[in-house]
């Protein structure tokens, strides 16, 4: 066999635009956004439903990030939803500040003397932090009035935290379950700190009223919800492309190698720690972006969102969807989080057993837990594995298996 005539076209080497999952994802997202936009304009879907879809896309984005770090690189992070929350806080600070500033300025304009900048600041402080018994503006809010800076923080702060944490942990070769425990402990510490009133982020009240976008007070929520749906879909689409590109080629090989046999990758001359750090930090930033898009649609962010359980949900979504494949994470997050809203939102009818009534609002978590256990035990490929059932059957007929070439084909053809 000459080198020139080699037909080297395995899935991963094909250009992105020719890969089935990438095409399907792009078409799916485009169809979803266009259809929902049209339906919304016809008044057939509610604003809250559009927001639910928009939020779901952001959760898919976070799941995509977790799949990169867990499914591909093998780092089970139980803290990536904290980065999502931090993104939400960063954008929430600007939303609250700017809106409060506008309200305060309008009300102070009624007074006889024009207000000084100091008075405006004072009034904003009372307005935002009165709820935690202070009017002092914490240092964290120093740049809350600047949208570009807060947007940058939404991505850079998660990146910085992940970078420092990862550098310390990976450098000391903390891996496996120990790393998972560390990420969870860090997440717990962050949420406990945020719960405190003197954290400077309004304690357990969190930041609220985020659905009101400053400067767009005249635009109805029905329009804003569509904008955010589009923004979320575009963010997910671009991230999906970026993630597909990242995990293709040698970089993806190295990541999967680290997941399967870290020591072997080291002996090939790759600095495993640098790769881990890059992926951990990059995905943290992606989660920050997803959070910054999510919370203006949710309207409120509070410390409970950052609690470790949220990060565990993220892991459950990726596991159910099928880790190690990007579309698996997206499907898992979409299916499970939508099912979750359906069950807990009273959408699923209660089951009357005569002696007991199964209320799904109570029983949904049991169902979710059970599916997680079943998927882990019996279908480790998750929902994504369903795709294999179809494609493998097709591929097997074309492939020569083992030394007895074509033996399987012969077998299959027998009646």
């Amino acid at each position, binding site marked *: 066999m000459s080198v020139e005539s080699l037909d080297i076209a395995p899935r991963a080497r094909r250009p992105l635009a020719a890969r089935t999952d990438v095409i399907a994802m792009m078409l799916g997202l485009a169809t979803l956004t266009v259809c929902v936009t049209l339906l919304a304009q016809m008044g057939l879907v509610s604003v809250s439903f559009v927001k639910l879809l928009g939020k779901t896309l952001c959760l898919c984005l976070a799941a995509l990030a977790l799949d990169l770090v867990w499914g591909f690189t093998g780092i089970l992070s139980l803290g990536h939803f904290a980065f999502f929350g931090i993104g939400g806080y960063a954008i929430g600070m600007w939303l609250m500040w700017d809106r409060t500033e506008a309200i305060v300025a309008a009300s102070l304009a009624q007074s006889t003397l024009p207000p000084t900048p100091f008075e405006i600041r004072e009034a904003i402080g009372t307005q935002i932090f009165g709820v935690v018994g202070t009017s002092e503006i914490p240092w964290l809010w120093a740049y809350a009035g600047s949208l570009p800076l807060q947007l940058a923080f939404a991505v850079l702060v998660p990146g910085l935290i992940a970078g420092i944490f990862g550098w310390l942990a990976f450098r000391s070769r903390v891996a496996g379950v120990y790393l998972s425990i560390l990420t969870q402990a860090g997440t717990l510490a962050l949420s406990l700190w945020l719960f405190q009133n003197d954290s400077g982020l309004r304690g357990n009240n969190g930041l609220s009223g985020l659905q009101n976008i400053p400067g767009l007070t005249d635009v109805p929520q029905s329009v804003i919800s569509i904008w955010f749906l589009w923004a979320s879909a575009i963010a997910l689409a671009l991230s999906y492309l970026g993630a597909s590109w990242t995990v293709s080629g040698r*970089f993806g090989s190295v990541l*999967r190698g680290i997941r399967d046999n870290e020591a072997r990758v080291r002996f090939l*001359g790759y*600095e495993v720690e640098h790769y881990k750090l890059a992926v951990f930090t990059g995905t943290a930033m992606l989660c920050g972006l997803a959070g910054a898009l999510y919370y203006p649609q949710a309207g409120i962010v509070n410390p409970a969102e950052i609690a470790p359980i949220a990060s565990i949900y993220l892991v459950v979504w990726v596991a159910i969807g099928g880790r190690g494949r990007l579309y698996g994470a997206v499907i898992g997050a979409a299916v499970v989080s939508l099912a979750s809203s359906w069950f807990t939102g009273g959408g699923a009818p209660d089951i009357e057993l005569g002696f007991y009534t199964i209320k799904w609002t109570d029983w949904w978590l049991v169902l979710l837990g059970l599916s997680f256990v079943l998927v882990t035990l019996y279908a480790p490929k998750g929902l994504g594995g369903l795709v294999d059932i179809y494609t493998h059957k097709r591929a097997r007929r074309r492939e020569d298996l083992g030394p007895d070439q074509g033996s399987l084909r012969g077998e299959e053809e027998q009646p």
Partner: protein
Amino acid sequence: MSALLEVSGVTKSFDGFKAIDNLSLSVNEPELRAIIGPNGAGKTTFMDLVTGKTRPDSGTIRYGELSRDLTAMSEAQIARAGIGRKFQKPTVFEDQTVLENLTMALAAPRNPLNVLLRRPDRSARAAAVAEEVGLEKDLNKRAGILSHGQKQWLEIGMLLAQEPRLLLVDEPAAGMTTAERERTTAMLVEAAKTRAVVVIEHDMEFVRRLKCRVTVLHEGRSLAEGSLDHVCADPRVIDVYLGRPEEADA
């Protein structure tokens, strides 16, 4: 010929047990060298020390013209300096294709940014290596479905792709058929024409076929060195391999 690897006075103990005891050894370039010894002689620990997996308690390991101290370098740095290692059990990435395995091993920049952004097509180079180890027809097969012998060859191929100056090979013939062994011997002899190859083995027949200088390791020390016939005639080696009569009596 000059010494490529210079191990001098290296000691390594685990919980009081001296796995390597004041070992000195030097390997030239090019050279094919076999290290033999009974179980627990410290063969694998020796490899771990050279490749940076474990650090010696004392002694130095110097490498190359610059006499770089390997004991102060990370596993990845040592690998990039040109030392390749083949494990006893074939360790290839089973979830990835032969091509992907080889491409990962090919000598090329290894820092994350470069790997992510610069993606020249290296498939021809990988295919050439595959041809060397007889896997040219299996490029797109998942490494997991290869036979045991093919996996060993793939791993040797990955080592060759790294273009190392020093190749450490741990029991390459274990679990192979006679035909596979012959092919493996040929590969190693060929590789040793241009670089240093150290083969760790306790199968004497396989070592005989390599026709090379042999170092006998026992209880972490170098017991004898020379041609296979020479060391086999050494009474101390006979003692080690056939057991000491006084101990057998006890």
